[in-house]
């Protein structure tokens, strides 16, 4: 029943607009694992992403084009080629990688300065929470200086892509914000 109605309303109101979502973060944070966790609900063995992965997924009646861009140092400048028309950025942080928190913070704030991302919502995954010694979401938030963000909807969620935890909570928030602010 739900399907019949949703397709009917989609035709009437055209809410099936495709939304572009970027998954960004330092190398090895878990971006690709999160992408495939979202798309097929399974843990895949990943290799470092050279270039990008892109998958389309439907979630809560929204069609999401999710781009997972490689995080290696010298390919980070290419992230900006994908910024146009981006509804939201999912920034993934390895919560156990304390040494590179400052690098992650720098990359995050640099990215958010970009004109093309001014309206994009920000979801941060404090990932790898299954590992002992992982920083909590609030600790990661402090490291990333998230409270400094102005005029932007943001949220940070503790997650474990390997166990599939926290991902739903984060995506639910993101989809609600997009529906409220951008549709």
């Amino acid at each position, binding site marked *: *029943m*739900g*399907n019949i*109605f*949703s397709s009917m*309303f989609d035709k*009437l109101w055209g*809410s099936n607009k495709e939304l572009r979502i970027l998954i960004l973060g330092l*190398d*090895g944070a878990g971006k690709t*694992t999160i992408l*495939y966790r979202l*798309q*097929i*609900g*399974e*843990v*895949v*063995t*990943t*290799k*470092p992403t*050279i270039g990008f992965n892109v998958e389309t997924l*439907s*979630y809560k*009646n929204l069609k999401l084009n999710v781009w997972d861009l490689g995080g*290696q*140092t*010298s390919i980070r*400048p290419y992230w900006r080629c994908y910024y146009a028309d981006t509804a939201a950025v999912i920034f993934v942080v390895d919560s*156990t990688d304390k040494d590179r928190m400052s*690098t992650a913070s720098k990359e995050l704030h*640099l990215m958010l300065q970009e004109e093309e991302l001014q309206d994009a919502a920000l979801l941060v995954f404090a990932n*790898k929470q*299954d590992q*002992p*010694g992982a920083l909590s*979401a*609030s600790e990661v938030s402090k490291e990333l200086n998230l409270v400094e963000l102005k005029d*932007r*909807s*943001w*949220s*940070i*969620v*503790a*997650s*474990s892509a*390997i*166990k*599939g*935890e*926290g*991902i*739903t*909570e984060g995506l*639910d*928030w993101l989809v*609600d*914000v997009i529906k409220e602010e951008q549709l």
Partner: protein
Amino acid sequence: MSDWKVDPDTRRRLLQLQKIGANKKCIDCGAPNPQWATPKFGAFICLECAGIHRGLGVHISFVRSITMDQFKPEELLRMEKGGNEPLTEWFKSHNIDLSLPQKVKYDNPVAEDYKEKLTCLCEDRVFEEREHLDFDASKLSATSQTPASATPGVAQSREGTPLENRRSATPANSSNGANFQKEKNEAYFAELGKKNQSRPDHLPPSQGGKYQGFGSTPAKPPQERSAGSSNTLSLENFQADPLGTLSRGWGLFSSAVTKSFEDVNETVIKPHVQQWQSGELSEETKRAAAQFGQKFQETSSYGFQAFSNFTKNFNGNAEDSSTAGNTTHTEYQKIDNNDKKNEQDEDKWDDF
């Protein structure tokens, strides 16, 4: 911005090192021309094995691309002073089977010692090897857990399905497959969400606590919004005066019902069902439930077939709920699920 650049001298040096002796092959699988490295062990690895090393956690192995990442000076030094050969020798001389999975091979006291040895070498200090009386390298096996890895479940669950296999297995273009996949995913995520709800707040997730978040906007905007924008239909009102609150209008109710249904179920219906079950049947409660259903049916004259089905269910159940509290409860849950699917549609009805 300048730190996105890779220093060409460093890169040239790494490429030179990679062409020397045992560095020409991946230390783990022997694949030729490895372009990745684990500076902690000073060893060169291939792309595939780099993927595995990244999964071990940065406290064990930290992976860099020799062409795409900038090495810190101390990381480059570790590559210079180390290399694949000394590490292989070290493993051999300590009876570590080289064919062991990386998870076992690099997460044990012997491997830990090698990192310390390499650090000493780089810092011109004398390395004193420690005794590991409780550690027996010959007992390491592909499935064994080393003392260093704390939680047995984690090690196994970090292994996954290879990406290539699942690519060919999932028909991405077939709409049937996509729909099925969508439903499967939604069911899967709903289940995960439920599991998470029952976890304690005060523990970190690695110890069984709840995965939580926060941010600039409330984590659960729908409920908050419905409470804020429609003051007449708050849960408190609903509990205090169910009929009065409901009769304030279909429009309000329909917009809020899906959003607060879960809470209504938790705070109003469940306790009442329990009451019915426990036999302390309040006449008023029963009347309220019946009228609640009736109201529903009246307003469904908006003419949507779907909704009259919904209310029939609802009304029917409300009436025989006094005898079968249990079934009512499951029925409510079903309706609840249905409603979630229609959530988007419901929002549209407001505009109608």
